[in-house]
C-alpha cells in the first residue's frame, strides 16, 4: 500500500480541484521561514519532504499545503533540538490567549 504522498493511481473518480486562492499573509510567512531555515542549514528540501511524508494519514489529508510545511518544520526543529514541542505548544497557547 503506497503512503499518502505517493498519490499516482489511487482509484478516485472525484473531479480535480482547480480552485485558486490568494496567498494569505501566514502562508507567505511560512514560505519565508522555510527559506531562513534552509539558509541556516536547519533543513533542506529533501528533509522537508521526508517530514511531510511522515505525517499520519489523517493529518496528511486534513492539512493544507502550507500547514503541512509548518508541521514538517516543527518536526525538523524538534528533531535537531532547536526547540521542544513543549516550547512550541506554550507559545501557541500564549498567542491564542493574546488573540481572545
Amino acid at each position, binding site marked *: 500500500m*503506497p*503512503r499518502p504522498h*505517493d498519490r*499516482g*493511481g489511487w482509484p478516485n473518480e472525484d473531479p480535480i480541484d482547480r480552485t485558486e486562492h490568494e496567498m494569505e499573509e501566514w502562508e507567505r510567512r511560512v514560505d519565508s521561514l522555510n527559506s531562513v531555515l534552509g539558509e541556516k542549514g536547519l533543513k*533542506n*528540501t*529533501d*528533509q522537508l*519532504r*521526508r517530514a511531510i*511524508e511522515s505525517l499520519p494519514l489523517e493529518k496528511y489529508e486534513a492539512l493544507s499545503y502550507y500547514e503541512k510545511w509548518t508541521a514538517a518544520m516543527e518536526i525538523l526543529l524538534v528533531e535537531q533540538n532547536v526547540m521542544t514541542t513543549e516550547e512550541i505548544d506554550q507559545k501557541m497557547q500564549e498567542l491564542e490567549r493574546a488573540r481572545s
Partner: protein
Amino acid sequence: MTEAESVRFGPGDKVQVRVATPPTHIRTPVYVQGKTGRVDAVYGAFHNPESRAYGGTGTPKQPLYRIEFAQTDLWDNYRGPADDKLLIDIYQHWLDSAD
C-alpha cells in the same frame, strides 16, 4: 570534486524500475515500480535525496535519468490515446538494465 556513481545507461536503453517500498523517503513512485521504460535523457549526477532527507551528505552522487514509459504499460484500462507517454525522473540506483 564530489564522488559520483558512474553513468550506466544511455539514451534509448531499456530499463526496469526496482520494486521497493521502504518506510524511508524515496523518489520513485509505486506506480512505476517494476515497470519497463526507455532512457529518454541523462541529466548528470546529483546528490542522493534519499540520504539528504535524513541530513546525510547525499554522496556518492547518483546519475539521474528522464525515463519514458507508455501510459498503457502503467495503468490497467488506460482510457487515453494509445501512444500517450509518461516522462519521469528516476535515479540510477532504482534502475536495472532490461535490454
